[in-house]
């Protein structure tokens, strides 16, 4: 008889990548899984755990990429990710079977501190010495054989960026699955066991699980451990028991606040003694020379301002020619499809004036997005971003932010969503919340279309390219100028907690990889295109419909009758003569009639009526009803203003025939009634006010929801109201001051 016992169904092996920030975990994750996680030469690129599947020789395993950390101590729930994964505290992902510990080979001692803490968890480990290529240039030599003997786990030198060592990692994993190997644990004094047992017994977790040994260490050694929030008992009771446990250590002659680091480093020094040979003379050459310039008192600041200026200039001026090509393509498609749809006017209008106009107006800004992301990627991968944080810390600290706020804020110039996510690298909760709050003020790439349109139509033709570039720079600076005092108020008067210090590692400079830069551009561009195909497409159709309907032949006949009657009173001829002139489609009168018909139709459409109703709110900013409508329609996503204006002017028949651009339509746009009748709507104060409105307003549903996620409803609502109010005030100020003083 065959045995009924079959081998237990094997579940997928779980493997976690752990290590200090910026050691190359995500690079290795990509090599092992074939996926494309974002990497970058800045500590804290990965901010939340990501999973992927990797192939072993006969099976697959689940690989988890984690945010980098220097230690297991956690002062906030976000910092707890690593220790929680290691202890299997997430229901979706169990405790890992194997740890791939990624160390920066050129900085072994410091990196092993975390490894030594993790050894307490008794999970089999592979020690990966990544960035092996930077060991020799840093003037060090590592005796691999000696190290292997000491660490008692597989030790694998790798070069993540060249995909070197990947196969060896897989081999090591398979070896460990056969026969587990563990990093030697630290020998704690006897009193530690008493302290740990005391905490395990007295402090059950929510759900009645026991604390693991590594978690009791966090309670023992950390001053404000985030583990407390996981306990079933009150914070007071926890504090009391921790105090009792610390007494065990004190009696043994240890100071619990410094003992941990001291003992671990002593353990590590034992493990690596004689392994690393240093030649002090050679230590970093290139990085030092570059920093001497880029962090110089005078040159450094000049270089910083210069670099930021070049980014914005490039975004504005390099994209121009490509934009023109896209715009030409749009007109070409319209000309191609238009005649085919002539038989069905409504469909023709939907396709030409709605979809192509709306989506096309949006897509024109693709080149800008690509250029901006190329620069961000270059700055980050080269290592300059961390220097920028170093330079900016002083400026930021007085208003309660810190140097680490710089990267979230700069990323927010591309898009506030990754920017707000990146605030997770800020340890200080106060600075972090303030950064989340002010990040949406940074001028994201979705505002770019508005600026480009306004500047291209009204600033550049009159004042020249220099002022155009300057205006764009100024608009991008405005958000920062508002953010700083806002952060000051928030951290000074709203958040009352004690602020915490700023500590950061400066990475070495590296030549950015073309592949990474291109991939980042492609990703950003593709997201932008997808947006055009989904949300922009949908909103475009809704806006088109609310501008097109209600519409009927009766109405058109009425409009014609009133037009004809007016022309008759103007003395152009009798009714029949005027009608005959209208028959001839090329006549000037027919042209005038088309414009009149278009704008009359829009005037009485649903959207037109709403626009007229809300226009008084924006009257003090000099906005007409069309701008008011576009502003309102842009609340879900600010880019929508472009499509909306496009449709309004296209349906209204205002789009210039030779130059099919929206730009020209805006230039020709005039007030139709009231005291300002026949004067241009878009004067310089109105245009600047409009840009200021978009610079400051909270017009992005996605950002609001990410603020809810990262900071809670209360802050999301405050942010929305505050930004909207500020935007309105800003626009009104620009218009009133600009119109009355100049």
């Amino acid at each position: 008889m065959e045995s009924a016992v079959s081998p237990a169904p094997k579940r997928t092996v779980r493997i976690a990548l752990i290590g200090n920030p910026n050691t190359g975990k995500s690079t290795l994750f990509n090599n092992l899984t074939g996926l494309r996680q974002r990497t970058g030469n800045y500590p804290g690129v990965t901010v939340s755990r990501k999973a992927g599947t990797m192939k072993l020789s006969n099976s697959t395993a689940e690989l988890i990429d984690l945010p980098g950390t220097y230690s297991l101590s956690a002062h906030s729930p976000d910092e707890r990710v690593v220790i929680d994964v290691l202890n299997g505290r997430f229901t979706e992902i169990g405790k890992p079977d194997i740890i791939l510990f990624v160390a920066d080979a050129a900085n072994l001692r410091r990196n092993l501190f975390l490894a030594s803490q993790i050894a307490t968890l008794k999970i089999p480990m592979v020690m990966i010495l990544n960035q092996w290529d930077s060991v020799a240039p840093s003037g060090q030599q590592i005796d691999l054989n000696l190290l292997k003997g000491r660490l008692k786990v597989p030790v694998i030198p790798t070069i993540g960026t060249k995909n070197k060592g990947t196969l060896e990692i897989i081999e090591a994993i398979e070896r460990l699955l056969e026969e587990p190997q563990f990093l030697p644990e630290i020998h704690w004094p006897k009193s530690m066991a008493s302290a740990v047992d005391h905490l395990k017994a007295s402090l059950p977790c929510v759900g009645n699980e026991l604390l693991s040994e590594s978690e009791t260490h966090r309670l023992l050694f950390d001053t404000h451990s985030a583990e407390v929030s996981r306990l079933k008992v009150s914070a007071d009771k926890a504090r009391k028991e921790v105090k009792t446990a610390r007494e065990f250590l004190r009696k043994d002659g240890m100071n619990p606040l410094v003992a941990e680091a001291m003992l671990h480093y002593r353990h590590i020094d034992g493990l690596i003694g004689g392994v690393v040979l240093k030649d002090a003379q050679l230590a970093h050459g290139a990085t030092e020379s570059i920093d001497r310039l880029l962090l110089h008192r005078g040159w450094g600041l000049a270089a910083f301002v210069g670099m930021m200026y070049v980014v914005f200039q490039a975004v504005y001026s390099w994209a121009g020619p490509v934009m023109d090509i896209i715009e030409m393509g749009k007109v070409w498609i319209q000309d191609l499809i238009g005649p085919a749809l002539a038989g069905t006017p409504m469909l023709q209008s939907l396709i030409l004036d709605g979809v192509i106009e709306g989506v096309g107006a949006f897509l024109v800004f693709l080149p800008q997005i690509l250029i901006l992301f190329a620069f961000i990627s270059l700055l980050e991968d080269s290592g300059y971003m961390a220097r920028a944080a170093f330079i900016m810390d002083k400026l930021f600290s007085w208003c309660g932010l810190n140097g680490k706020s710089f990267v979230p804020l700069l990323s927010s110039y591309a898009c506030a969503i990754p920017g707000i996510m990146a605030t997770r690298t800020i340890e200080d909760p106060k600075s972090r919340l303030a950064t989340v709050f002010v990040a949406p003020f940074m001028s994201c790439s979705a505002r770019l279309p508005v600026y480009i349109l306004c500047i291209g139509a009204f600033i550049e033709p009159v004042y020249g390219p220099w002022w155009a570039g300057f205006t764009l720079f100024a608009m991008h600076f405005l958000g920062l100028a508002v953010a700083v005092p806002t952060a000051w108020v928030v951290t000074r008067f709203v958040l009352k907690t004690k602020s915490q210090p700023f500590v950061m590692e400066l990475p070495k400079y590296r030549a950015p990889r073309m592949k990474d830069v291109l991939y980042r551009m492609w990703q950003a561009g593709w997201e932008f295109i997808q947006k055009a195909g989904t949300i922009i497409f949908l909103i475009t159709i809704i806006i088109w419909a609310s501008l097109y309907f209600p519409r009927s032949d009766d109405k058109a006949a009425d409009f014609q009758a009133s037009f004809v009657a007016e022309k008759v009173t103007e003395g152009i001829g009798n009714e029949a003569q005027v009608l005959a002139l209208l028959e001839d489609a090329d006549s000037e009168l027919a042209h005038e009639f088309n414009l009149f018909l278009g704008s009359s139709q829009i005037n009485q459409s649903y959207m037109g009526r709403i626009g007229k109703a809300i226009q008084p709110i924006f009257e003090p900013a000099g906005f007409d009803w069309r701008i008011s409508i576009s502003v309102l329609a842009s609340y879900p996503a600010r880019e929508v203003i472009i499509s909306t204006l496009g449709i309004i002017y296209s349906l209204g028949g205002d789009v210039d025939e030779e130059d099919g651009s929206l730009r020209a339509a805006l230039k020709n746009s005039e007030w139709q009634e009231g005291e300002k009748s026949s004067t241009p709507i878009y004067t310089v104060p109105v245009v600047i006010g409009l840009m200021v409105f978009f610079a400051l307003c909270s017009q992005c549903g996605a950002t609001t929801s990410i603020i809810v996620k990262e900071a809670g409803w209360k802050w999301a609502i405050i942010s929305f109201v505050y930004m909207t109010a500020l935007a309105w005030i800003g626009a009104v100020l620009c218009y009133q001051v600009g119109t009355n003083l100049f």
Partner: protein
Amino acid sequence: MANLLSLKIGQSARVTQIRAVNHIDQRILSLGIGADVIVKVCKVAPLGDPIAVEVDGAQIVLRKSEAQGILVEPV
């Protein structure tokens, strides 16, 4: 007693003690700046604060207010 701020740029020193400022001292410790470790002040930000300290070949940025709590003796 001398602290990190009293060092000149490029000057090395041995850490003798870290005076508790906040839970920052724990972070500083885990970064490898602890008693008996050799540190070197290598950079000052263009605006005068923070500074960067070299430990074991890595450069760690600290604000002056925290650097003050790191006591050293020049070597």
